[in-house]
């Protein structure tokens, strides 16, 4: 249900990245505007390098690291975040 049609075959959604792996943000367009702004405020933008830390219990939030800070977002939103595995 979190899957979304990803245009570029090299891209994937953040939610599909395994904990411990790195990825680079490609596009945030599919995320709701309010959340997108908050992510940008926190310094998560196109080109940012992320490391997925862990997935929360029972489909709970996904935690990732970006520029030394830990951020949690819902898995559904993570499914809308286009990234390229690095």
């Amino acid at each position, binding site marked *: 249900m979190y899957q979304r049609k990803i245009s570029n075959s090299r891209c994937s959604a953040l939610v599909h990245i395994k904990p411990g792996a790195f990825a680079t943000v490609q596009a945030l367009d599919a995320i709701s505007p*309010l959340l997108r702004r908050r992510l940008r405020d926190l310094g998560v933008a196109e080109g940012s390098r992320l490391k997925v830390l862990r*997935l929360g219990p029972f489909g709970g*939030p996904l935690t990732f690291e970006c*520029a030394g800070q830990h951020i949690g977002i819902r898995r559904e939103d993570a499914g809308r975040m286009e990234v390229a595995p690095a």
Partner: protein
Amino acid sequence: MNQFALFGNPNTGKTSLFNMLTRSYETVGNWSGVTVEKRIGTLRGRSGRIVDLPGLYSLLPLTEDEGVAARFLMEETPASILNIVDASQPERNLYLTLQLLESGRPMLIGLNMIDVARNRHISVDPQVLQRELGVPVLPIIARKGTGCTDVLHALGSLTAPGSEGFRLDYGPAVEQGVSDLCILLRTLPSSSAPRWTALQLLEGNEAVRTALAGRIDGEALDSILQQTGRELEAAGFGCDVSAHLRQVRTQRIARICTAAVQRSDQAVHTATERIDAILTHRILGIPLFLAMMFLIFKLTFDWVGSLLSDVLDGFISGMLSGWISAALGGLGASPFTHALVVDGIVGGVGGVLVFLPQICILFLLISFVEDSGYMARITLLMDRTMEAVGLSGKAFIPFIIGFGCNVPAIMAARTMEHRKDRLLTTLLVPLMSCSARLPVYALFAGVFFASNQALVVMGLYVLGMVLALALAKLFSRTLLRSEPSLFIVELPPYRMPQPLSLLRMTWEKVKGFLRKAGTIILAGSVVIWFLSNTGSSGFGVDMNDSFLASIGGALSGLLAPIGFGTWQAGAALITGFMAKEVVVSTMNIIYQVPDMAGLEHQVAAAFTPLQAFSFVTFILLYIPCLATVGVIRKETASWRWTFFSMGYSLVLAYAVALVIYQGGKWIGFA
């Protein structure tokens, strides 16, 4: 007097710095959104005043509490800015800094948490930063007070940057729009630079626009905004002006950081990651949270609190009231006065004060959790549950604050992005068992459930939370549909709370309780004592014929099905609306007992364990106290929602108590 405004990202230590600079102690927490309203303090040395504003990432407001800060720049008379920058997150923090620089006010930058940055192998050169930005930059460690005197000193000699100050070129299209807007704004007296106002308008800052509403030509403004968008698109940048502004600023920040920041690629905060691997574990996380809660209650009630409480009771009911009796006797007071002071005031206030140790310990432990950084993890663990009932995981922070006092908890709901989330949280916070209800639980649990007090009290807390979640589901399905909830949380690195700041935070909270005891609880006790001693036939009537008995008795018929149809219980519930502690005061006065042991004996005779349990559950839920009603009214700005919150809690309390009492009787409890 000089006025300074403290700006910075959330959770960068603004409030710590505020405390260091002003001698007053505000609550410091380790999560975003502790400060929800601007506050003013006087600087040490009385050289000026400083305003602590809610943390924000950019001047474009997203939540209610961020709007306070953006409006401040529009409306306040020229104030200097003290901008606090987290040295461990320079890129993100400088975004706000650039926007503040554009306002053209005198500004000082406090480069905070240089110690945290060092641990993460990040070093920021204040000299280079100062050169790049054109305003003084001072390295500080606000939490420990390092560098704060320098800041205080530098604030005194702060001057406006002048025309050669910081300026960012946004390209021909935007610059044209800015100069057009400046012409439009020319006639307006404004406290910030016109260029800043113009840029904020181009960026779409609603707070700035609202502040100017009616004073400028809205159509002219809109046409300039559209024109700028078109020109920007023609220049090949896309038509979104705010995205363009952000991009230009971000590029500049990247250039500044290349010059001023040095990083090494070693692994960072491994300790936090290791702790998180356990505390936010997908299976262990929630059980560990519950275990932690249980430990807190065990410490509060079983291990430490009750013992100290007994000592305090011995002092109040023994020595203190002995002295007062002797003093009254010496002054030649009549038995009536003697009864008023000893039975009414000392009995009523003392009966509540006895539970001071439990309250101190609970506050100390809550302060510890707040300051350690665990709070943000709790929101992470609870989000799935909260989402399922239609709330943001962030609503959990007001809920936790609500365990201390519901009033600030409702104010904390402002940090939520959506109106629906805010309203739902405001309505549900009163179900969180605040510390005022603690004396009631402590009294009843001590009498009826002595061997597992912690478990019973924790059960009540959990019951409140479970009901809040169930009602959130109900309300979000029926009354408050629309807007999906939003969740994003920053997880700060764990840190060991400083003992001194822990004690301070606890003391500030305990002071609130003591103040309450000296004011509203005392006054309530006097009123209750008079009501219990006067009747239609005058003073000194038998208590069963008193006004209090007839007031309480009016309710007893209604309360009989839920197990406590006595006038005493009815009277305690009515007076408890003022403040929940007053329930204990009322019982103390009604049963006219000299000490806790006596009251426990009386209560044990008046209630069966099942009735007692039904009674404390009813107390937990039945109504938000008067102060909370006031704040609900203020925050929702609607009497309808205010009455709704009182009404639903009464119905809920009755239903739950009915199920407990009738169900319990049916199963076979007495």
